[in-house]
């Protein structure tokens, strides 16, 4: 089951990462695994700030790339879920703080 589109996301603070020429490289220090995000993945990564929900991120994606709002939401949620499974992002509970 996917996380609600209203859920707010933030980057895992333990990560090392760098945007290099519109692509983002992320290192998870615990397992030394490197992840690379392409242009659109990097765009979303930059905007994951602990304040925006998946729906808001999708809206930004649709505004900046030639995708329909439905596709943007579906792609955004898919990426967030995938990154969440890899512990690159975490949801922010309504009360604030980071949920595991």
């Amino acid at each position, binding site marked *: 089951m996917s996380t609600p589109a209203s859920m707010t996301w933030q980057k895992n603070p*333990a*990560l*090392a*990462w*760098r*945007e*290099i*020429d519109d*692509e983002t*490289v992320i*290192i998870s*220090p*615990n*397992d*030394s*695994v*490197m*992840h*690379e*995000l*392409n242009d*659109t*993945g990097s765009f*979303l990564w930059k905007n994951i700030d602990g304040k925006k929900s998946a729906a808001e991120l999708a809206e930004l994606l649709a505004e900046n790339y030639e995708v329909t709002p439905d596709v943007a939401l579906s*792609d955004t949620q*898919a*990426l967030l879920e*995938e*990154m969440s499974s*890899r512990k690159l992002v975490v949801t922010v509970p309504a009360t604030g703080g980071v949920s595991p």
Partner: protein
Amino acid sequence: MDGLISRTVQKHRPLSVHFDLTYRCNERCVHCYLDHDDHGELTTAECLKVLEDLARSGTLFLTFSGGEIFLRPDLYEILAAARRLHFDISLKSNALLVTAERAARLREFGVRRVQISVYSDVPAIHDAITKVPGSLERTLAAIPILLEHGLQVKLACPLMQENLMAYRGVMALAEKLGVPYILDLTITPMMDGSSGPLEHRASVSSLLPVLRDPVLHACKPQPSSAAASTMDALPSTFGSAVSSGIESAAYEDLPCSAGHNSCYISPYGDVFPCVQLPQAAGNLRREKFEDIWYHAPQLERLRAIRESQLPICSQCEIRSYCERCPGLALMEGGDMLGAYERACALAEEKAKLAGVSAPISALHLKQNTALVLATVEAEFASLATDSSSD
């Protein structure tokens, strides 16, 4: 990883930076290439400014080293800044000053890996190299502490005359600790060019038992046990184990990564292509990192070098066995583009071990040809003298 290496090499992004915070050290290793006096280290504020410049320029992999980094009283302040700027942080240390509290702080500041120099599993050998009695015991005591705090540890063992046959003990030690290791045959001159450390370098002939050891060929240490995996999102994202990337095909016709996507910064702010290539491209007290990295003539010249165009080495039939280093070519042979004796001799031995019949490097071939020509000329001259005197 290959894609990242290719992109950063092509666009000259400084992906990896080795930043020595101090040359001061609490050991006095016999083979060390550094002057341990403090000649005016970058201040904390200057270090933080360097880190900001590096982050803006695209550096991800940052190695802090020395000297002994724990001798920098502002180490944690610098690490905290590196953490805020999202670097992947590694340290090199002799670990003499590691305590549980310090290990916890390294972890807190996001340090991923600590590389520790271990010269032998025998205290008398290790301590004779570091010139600090009890240093092996203290160094080894630090390793479980670091591991318990979630830091990765890697052993580095430079091999020289004093510890040449100690590598098996270090390998066994690494295996017992469950950590990777690296054996290094490189002993370099001092950074000012003086040759003191080379007195400790093992001769090529004495290295032969090491080069022939089947254990070294059967057991290649890996930097990480993490499994590579793939993910398919928007539309291409993937995970892979982080490695040095030095084996990447992106460097195919380049001597190495130096100046292409990596560089070295001294405690005094000098920017070099590599710690083994001591030609300063600029100083961060006077110039911005970006201005040095993208415009220094020294770096532009280095970037133009292609192995296939080297005057001697491009003709060499055993190039694939050679680990020529442009820095050592400069320091030992006086020419960054040239061949140098030690690399050629080692390449010949490695080629022999691989089954190549009578391998000879282009440098030695040229020297032999010159010798033959000189002998023939001398004989002709002698004959001419004889006939004129007749």
